[in-house]
């Protein structure tokens, strides 16, 4: 299954505002960061510190299923204010 992932801040600067990613069948939230780290090893550490958001909510449960229509984003540590 292919999903589009929104990226922000330094991640967006490095990889672009969105990347497409192939996931195994019946993916869960836990699959996304490892798949991105495999695809983009140069930003492995940046990906590790980012939080996953699905449909504009931080994901609290790694077992949350991901569907192709979900809005998926990686949120680097925020620094507003």
């Amino acid at each position, binding site marked *: 299954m292919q999903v589009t992932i929104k990226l922000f*801040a330094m991640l967006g600067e490095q990889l672009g505002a969105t990347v497409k990613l192939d996931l195994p069948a019946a993916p869960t939230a836990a699959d996304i960061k490892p798949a991105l780290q495999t695809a983009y090893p140069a930003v492995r550490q940046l990906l590790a510190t980012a939080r996953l958001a699905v449909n504009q909510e931080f994901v609290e449960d790694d077992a949350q299923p991901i569907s192709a229509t979900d809005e998926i984003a990686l949120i680097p540590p925020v620094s507003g204010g």
Partner: protein
Amino acid sequence: MYYLKISPTPLDVHALYEKLKDPQYGGIVTFVGTVRQWTGDIETQTIDYSAYPEMAEKQLNKLAAPIEAKGARVVIAHRVGHLDLTDEAVFVGVAAAHRAEAFEWCQYLIDTLKTEVPIWKRETDTDAVRWGD
């Protein structure tokens, strides 16, 4: 009732403050974050703020709703785009019946905004460009 906005328009601090005035409140606490020149030995020239705006507004709603449910009024505005020294980046205002709760809730809101709301700063310092920590 509360007002939450993320926008590239410069913050109109006085208009935001005026939204908090009401006969039912006796204490209004506001926090304004501005672009500071020096952080230790690092000199900042400008800051560019970016956001994931739809999610940021949802997150602000989640922060403000329980405070408003206690009877207070909340006004939060965050600027995005290019800011110069002393420009206002964020306004957080709480009006409440009594001052102790206005202080407590205003500080809670800005502290939580700084960890839970997807907004990022990119500082142009004299020696380097830095993403905020």
